[in-house]
């Protein structure tokens, strides 16, 4: 260790700093942070702000914030004639369920939130549910779509989006009906990671009901190269290819298909297509890709806070520069559920623990119509506490824009089938 003339020892400095830092961190538990004195409702947002799921995580945060900003601009949630603002705090699950559980505990214990807004991924949601149960704090999840979330019968969790096993299968039926000449065969690719795999399985399970024959079901590792799988499928020449995965592999599928000069008659993906980053990365090559959405800016729903779906989309676009997808919308709708439940509950902040249990019961009775669509939670069955009301809309990217193409009642443009050869 070096010492200079003045006797300053680097070692002593570092040692002293280390001791100070240690003392500081050990003292942390005993420091109470000052809290805002105004009466507000407190909500905690758990989402993925880093790690693999950072893309989706930020979308959910945007959605929850949109609601908070909108309601606070009006003065807050209305309870018994008065208005109370909502105070939002955040926890990053680092795309990791264990960290999600930590985040939940911190928000509940440290920040004393009245309600949680749920994580982006189903894995985190499942890990957080027992924490909600333990502390008896309700959670509203604007994003989780895995059927496993609801199979666990969570008393304190409610989901806005219908789970993927219902939507992906239904969407194939819609596609098959729209195809002319009728599609007969399908190959399904699922990326072997949580949720993507369930989407793939949802497609696989919906094949029969859609009247299609499945010629291949391929589970691919997220880091793998896609040329062998695409070549194999191309050799089987199915009419439709369905892919369950998030943005990055979906982009890679399209690129790989083009580089092998292979164009199926229809390419359907679930989530990710509705994400603007997908079309931005692929440019003109994104055209023709079909996706599933439970909400679009063009759906004919509205409510008092956000107006029509279109108005919501315009507002969101202004704030973030990107058109909102259904995750962002679902998260904003979560706030509407909270606002409505608090109103019916009739209790003013600060809420006591038994009030939060009552809040949970109030949420269970939700039956509202929003810009997102109707929201009502199942009371029993495999989709317990999931909102299965919305009907999935088939969308297709045409001219760089996401357009609703089916079912017929919701279609804004004809479904392009079969897809033309690559340019």
């Amino acid at each position, binding site marked *: 260790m070096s010492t200079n003339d003045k006797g300053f020892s680097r070692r002593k400095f570092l040692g002293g700093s280390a001791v100070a830092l240690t003392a500081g961190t050990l003292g942390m538990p005993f420091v109470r942070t000052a809290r805002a004195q105004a009466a507000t409702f407190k909500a905690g947002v758990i989402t993925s702000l*880093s*790690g*693999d799921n*950072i*893309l989706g995580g*930020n979308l959910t945060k945007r959605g929850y914030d949109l609601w908070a900003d909108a309601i606070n601009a009006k003065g807050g949630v209305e309870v018994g004639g008065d208005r109370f603002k909502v105070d939002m705090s955040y926890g990053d699950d680092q795309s990791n369920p264990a960290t999600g559980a930590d985040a939940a505990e911190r928000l509940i214990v440290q920040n004393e939130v009245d309600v949680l807004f749920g994580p982006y991924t189903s894995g985190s949601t499942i890990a957080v549910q027992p924490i909600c149960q333990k502390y008896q704090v309700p959670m509203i999840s604007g994003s989780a779509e895995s059927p496993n979330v609801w199979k666990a019968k969570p008393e304190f969790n409610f989901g806005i989006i219908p789970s993927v096993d219902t939507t992906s299968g239904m969407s194939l039926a819609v596609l098959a009906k729209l195809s002319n000449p009728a599609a007969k065969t399908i190959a399904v690719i699922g990326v*072997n990671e949580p949720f993507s795999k369930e989407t793939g399985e949802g497609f696989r399970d919906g094949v029969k009901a859609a009247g299609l024959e499945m*010629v*291949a079901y*391929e*589970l*691919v*590792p997220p*880091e*793998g*190269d896609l*040329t*062998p*799988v695409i*070549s*194999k499928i191309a*050799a*089987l*020449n199915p009419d439709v290819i369905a892919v369950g995965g998030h*943005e*990055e592999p979906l*982009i*890679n599928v399209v*690129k790989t298909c*083009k*580089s*092998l*000069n*292979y164009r199926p008659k229809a390419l359907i993906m679930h989530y990710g297509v509705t994400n603007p*980053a997908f079309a*931005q*990365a*692929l*440019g003109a*090559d994104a055209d023709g890709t079909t996706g599933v959405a439970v909400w679009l800016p063009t759906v004919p729903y509205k409510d008092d806070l956000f107006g029509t779906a279109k108005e919501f989309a315009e507002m969101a676009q202004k704030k973030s520069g990107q058109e909102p997808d259904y995750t962002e919308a679902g998260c904003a709708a979560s706030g509407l559920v909270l606002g409505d439940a608090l109103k019916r509950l009739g209790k003013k902040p600060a809420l006591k623990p038994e009030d939060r249990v009552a809040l949970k019961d109030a949420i269970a009775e939700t039956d509202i119509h929003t810009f997102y669509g109707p929201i009502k939670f199942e009371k029993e069955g495999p989709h317990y506490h999931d909102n299965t009301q919305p009907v999935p809309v088939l969308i297709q990217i045409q001219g760089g824009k996401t357009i609703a193409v089916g079912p017929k009642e919701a279609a804004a443009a004809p479904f392009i089938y079969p897809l033309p050869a*690559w340019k």
Partner: protein
Amino acid sequence: MPSRPCGLAAVKISAFPFSSRRTVAALDLFLQTLLNGLLIGGVIATFTIAFQLTFGVLHVIDFAVGGWVVLGGYLGYFMAAGLGVDGFLAIPVAFVLFGILGYLIGPILYNVRNSRTARPELMALALTFGLFTLLRGGMLTFWGFNTHSVPTALSGESFTVGPVTVPLIRVAAAVFAIAIAGGLFLFLYRTRYGLAIRATAENRHNAALMGVNIRRLSANVYGLYAGITAMAGVLMGSIYSVNPEVGLRYTLFAFFVAVLAGLGSVGGALVAALMLGVIEAFVSTYVGSSYSLLAIFTTLFLVLLISPKGILRRGL
């Protein structure tokens, strides 16, 4: 009647709808799979060849290799999106820009690797890991999390040779890999400076005695490696896509190819990369895509046990 094809092509063809054309279709798939495998190998080789130099000369396994790849990809994206140019133009820019950056960082790595602390090789690895994490965090913070693509003239283009479709951009990557390997070969074996590099890799003590400035040479080599890897990154951004989280994947593959080839062996890297590519393609097509990486990592593990100096026994 054509004779039944033997070997792998005979497996798993029951799904074909037209049994009278079975054997021809099976052969087509076999050929396409072989080509796919070789091209995957070529792609992997682009970012693993120069990586060998780092170990050979600096005796450091650079965890940050994936970081250089992603940086190159981002450069390609920014140039294409910002200046409207073809992504290929980013390749020489990447070499210069990241070559200089690598040249500046090299000496730090050298110092740590040759310091007198306990376990300097672990310290150097930890440093490169810290660097990689810093790069990843920085990219996430300043450039965001969205996935981007590098558009080039060859993106998505292909040509057909008989039953086989050949993606052009991957051919470009393979050509790049061969050019780099060839260029490095000429450089290492036909120039004085290359001789100095080889001497240092073999026995740095003696090389120093012969007058080689090890420190300066290490900095140059690291810069060269960073530049080449970033160039490969531009291509990766075009073939696949780029976001801050994919860097780890490239580090993983680079490490594994390096070991398979024998740490420090530049020539072995090409062979090892091709081998891994072919394994990935065939396992993916004929066994099941979910098993492809399992097969690769198992192969790596077995090679390490049976022939630790790499398949060609050229490792240091």
